[in-house]
Structures are given as structure tokens and as C-alpha cells.
């Protein structure tokens, strides 16, 4: 597992070696701010909390996280460096974990840089900082889930555009599957247990639970399982067609 750290460091450094990192962070912060203060009506609500800020995170991630994840493997495949990486004494799982953790860490850096919002709300009022922390945790986990999905699709194709589109679509499904309109299409005919099961797959539901400030073990396990599942799929896809 020492190799996970080595791959992680190389990968994380490579984000900051190109303008990608800076462009991503600036866009992320601008959009997060705009959503919060403009669409979310942060001031007008007159409440000292960060709900308008966190409510938009799923939609922000929906487009920005696939932009990060699409290059993870597709780029290695395109440049041929995957052949180098996969013939070094590193297991596929170590490479998958190292790359995923680097991408996650990078997104967390972007997320952490939203701290002025937190300072603002503390300056203006007396928010529940525990709830805010919980929401940050939920947001981080959700970003991890999106990234794991994206990493898997990136491994499946050498074309970054295809990886991006597939990831957006699948992430969109995982987001929307919990809302009543979507569940309505199932509840007419499917047994309630199935409807519940489908509803329980929704990123939105689990994220909403956590961002209310209630850290339920089930929500944590859910995101851990999502990440684990997609990374396992990523490893299998890679072993299966790394040379294609």
C-alpha cells in the first residue's frame, strides 16, 4: 500500500503542474459563491446557516466533478503512459486508489477554499457550526461518490468527452432517483420494498440527511459502499481492457 501514496503524490502534483487545477478551483469558487448569494438568496433569508450554499453542491458537482474524473484514466490511455504505469511493480488496485485519492484530495482542496462563506456566516450571525461541519463532510463524501463513478467511466474509454458525458448521465441518475417525480414512475407498479431500495440509492437523500447536521452511520456507509463499488468496478474494467 506504500505505492498508493507514491501514485497519489505524483497524481496530485500533476494537477498543479497544469492550469487545470487553477481553472477548476476558480470556477468552482465563483459558481459556489454565485449559487449561494444570488440563486440561494443567502442574505434575504435572514438565517444564519449555510443551507443555500450546500443545497447547490450536488448540482455543482454534477458538472465539475466529471471534468476532473474524465482525465483520470482516459488520458493515461491516450498518452500511452498507462503502459508504463501498469508495467511498474504497482498493482491495479494501488494505482486505482492512488489516482482516486489524489482526485478526491484535489476536490477537497477546492471545497476547503470555500471557507470564506463559513467565516461570513459566523460574522453575520451565530450558526450551528456542528451542522456546517457535518454538511461539509456530506459534501466531501458526495464528491467522492461522483469521482468514483467518473473514474470507472474514464477507465472504460480513451475518449475524455465520452467519459465526461457518461459520468454526468450516471451521476444525474444517482441524484434524481430519490425525488418524488422519479420515484412516482416506479411506485405505481413496483413493490414498495423495491421503491424504497431505489430511493435509498439517491445521493440527494443521503446528502440532505447529513447536511441537516445529522450524521447517521447509514449515510456514511452508503457513500463508502458507493465509492467502494465503483472503485472495484474501475479495477475490474482496467484489468480487463487496460491494453485496448
Amino acid at each position, binding site marked *: 500500500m*506504500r*505505492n498508493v501514496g*507514491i*501514485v497519489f503524490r*505524483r497524481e496530485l*502534483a*500533476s494537477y498543479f*503542474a*497544469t492550469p487545470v487545477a487553477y481553472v477548476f478551483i476558480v470556477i468552482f469558487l465563483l459558481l459556489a459563491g454565485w449559487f449561494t448569494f444570488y440563486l440561494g438568496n443567502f442574505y434575504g433569508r435572514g438565517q444564519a446557516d449555510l443551507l443555500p450554499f450546500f443545497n447547490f453542491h450536488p448540482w455543482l458537482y454534477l458538472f465539475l466533478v466529471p471534468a476532473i474524473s474524465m482525465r483520470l484514466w482516459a488520458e493515461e490511455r491516450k*498518452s*500511452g*503512459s498507462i*503502459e*508504463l504505469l*501498469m*508495467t*511498474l*511493480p*504497482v*498493482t491495479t488496485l494501488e494505482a486505482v486508489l492512488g489516482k482516486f485519492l489524489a482526485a478526491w484530495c484535489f476536490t477537497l482542496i477546492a471545497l476547503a477554499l470555500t471557507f470564506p462563506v463559513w467565516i461570513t456566516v459566523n460574522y453575520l450571525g451565530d450558526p450551528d457550526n456542528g451542522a456546517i461541519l457535518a454538511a461539509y463532510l456530506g459534501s466531501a463524501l458526495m464528491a467522492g461518490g461522483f469521482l468514483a463513478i467518473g473514474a470507472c467511466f474514464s477507465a472504460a474509454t480513451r475518449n475524455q468527452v465520452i467519459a465526461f458525458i457518461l459520468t454526468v448521465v450516471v451521476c444525474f441518475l444517482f441524484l434524481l432517483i430519490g425525488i418524488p417525480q422519479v420515484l412516482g414512475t416506479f411506485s405505481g407498479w413496483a413493490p414498495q420494498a423495491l421503491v424504497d431500495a431505489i430511493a435509498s440509492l439517491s445521493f440527494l437523500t443521503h446528502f440532505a440527511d447529513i447536511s441537516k447536521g445529522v450524521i447517521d452511520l447509514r449515510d456514511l456507509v452508503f457513500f463508502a459502499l458507493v465509492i467502494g463499488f465503483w472503485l472495484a468496478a474501475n479495477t475490474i474494467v482496467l484489468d480487463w481492457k*487496460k*491494453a485496448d
Partner: protein
Amino acid sequence: MIEINQLKKVYGSLVAVDGVSFTVSPGEVLGFLGPNGAGKSTTMKMITGFVSPTSGSARVCGFDVDEAPIEAKRRIGYLPEGAPGYGEMTPRRFLDFIAAVRGLEPARKRERLDAVIAELHLGPVLDQSIETLSKGFRRRVGLAQAILHDPQVLILDEPTDGLDPNQKHEVRALINSMAQDKIIVISTHILEEVEAVCSRAIIIADGRIVADDTPQALEARSRFHNAVSLRLADPSRLGPARAAIAALPQVAGTELDAAGERLTAFPKDGALVLPAVSELAARERWEVLELHLESGRLDEVFRDITGGIH
């Protein structure tokens, strides 16, 4: 030791490698020859564990590449086709990364980094990003990466492609200097390279081994082997000279080159033609510009064996 046993790779309906078997021992430099698409690179990818064989096995230093990939990969230094790398990294950071993955201790790492940087003349470009380097430098960064951990087995897919003649010469000297105690497999389609560095050559065509011999023995298969080439100061005397040489009992036939300046006499059953031709030249007082014994032409053998243009 590399032991390749009935290695086969099938992509859909295409048989890329079709039952290839050979072993390579320490001290051998094996040249892998063949037309483009013959299966050279695919075989190398299977030895290094990047591609899984459809059937058959590859063992490196006793470790089966499919069953104990990490142990096998530790012992291999590999330069993939096209020398891919991480474009945004500098050679310094890239080699640091490789040293870390290879698990080199700090002192050993410094020593090896200094050695490969000096051997491949990477000093001037250490802090430029790899994507901005010339093809020659990129290739040398790839080579540096392959030899950094001083591996027992070196697999180099077209190591001198894109290098200028001086750089080619240096890389060949480097390969020769490492040859003594290592197993080296290089693929190339530059035939002079085989003569320059390889102690053994395998020619592969359509996924099968069609020849496995020393470069000298392969040359001996050429009809030019032991032939004699002659150039005269006065080309107009070449006509009578040709008739006289063709009449020699050791000569099977003669041939003029395209420019009509060089006459080649082919021996009968590998007989020595040179003494008879030089004696004839002295007796007839030809003004000889050039008279030499051909050792055989590898390119011709290569074309014969692999069936011409693919």
C-alpha cells in the same frame, strides 16, 4: 532467465502472436526483428505483463508474469513503444517517481539517478517538462526510467527510434556495456542495430518465429555470404572482367549493380571466391578500385524470410 512458452494472443479474429516459444539467458542480447505488425510489441507487452496472453506463459527470473506479476515486474526494466511518459512532469520529478515506485533507498537512489542522468546526458533538460522535449530526449528519458533500478531484465521496444546517429551510437554503447550480466531484449527494424548490439536475433512474421540464430549465422543465409564485389577504375573493362570471373570454377554467377559499376561474384556452394578473383585481377592487370568479401546482407535475409513487403 526469460522463458516464453507457447505464447499466444488473439484479438477477435486477429492472431497477433501465434505460439511463440524461446528462452533468453543472462549475457544474451536478443534482437527482435520483424515487419510492422508482426507481433514484436505484443510479445513484449506480454513479457512485461501489460497484455495478458490468450494462452501460453511467460516466466521472468522464475516468476510467471500472470501469476506473480509484481515479482516479475520488479526485475524488469521496460521501455514501451514510443517511450510514453507523463508530459507535464519534468525528467527530474519523473525519475524521482520511478525511483520511489522501484523502492530505491535514498543513497542508492542518488547514485543511480546520477548514473543514468550522466549516461543518457539528461543534465540540460532535467527541469523542463517532458512534453516540451525533443523526440530524442523523450526517448532517453524513457530509457533512463527503464534502467534506473539496474534491472536483471531489460525489455526495450525500439530504443533508438527517433535518435540521431550520434545518440544511436551512444545508446548502443550503453546497451553493450550492460549486456554482460543482464538479459536484454530489444525490438528494432534497423538491421545494422542487430549487428551492432545483438548476440542473437529472432525474426518474427505473422506472429510466428521464422528464424532464431546469431546475426552472423543469419547473414550466412544470404546469397551474398562470401560473395566478392569488385569495382574497376575503367568501367568499360568490367564487361570482359565479368566474363572472365563467371568462367571461374568457384563462381556460380555474377551480377552488376544498378549503376553498372560494381560487379558481384556469387560463390558455388559457399566456396571461397576471393583468392581466385584477386589472382585473376593481378594476372589481367585490372586497375582495381575496390575488392571486398561480402559477409552477407541481413536486409536481404530479412526480406527473404519475412516474405517481402507486407
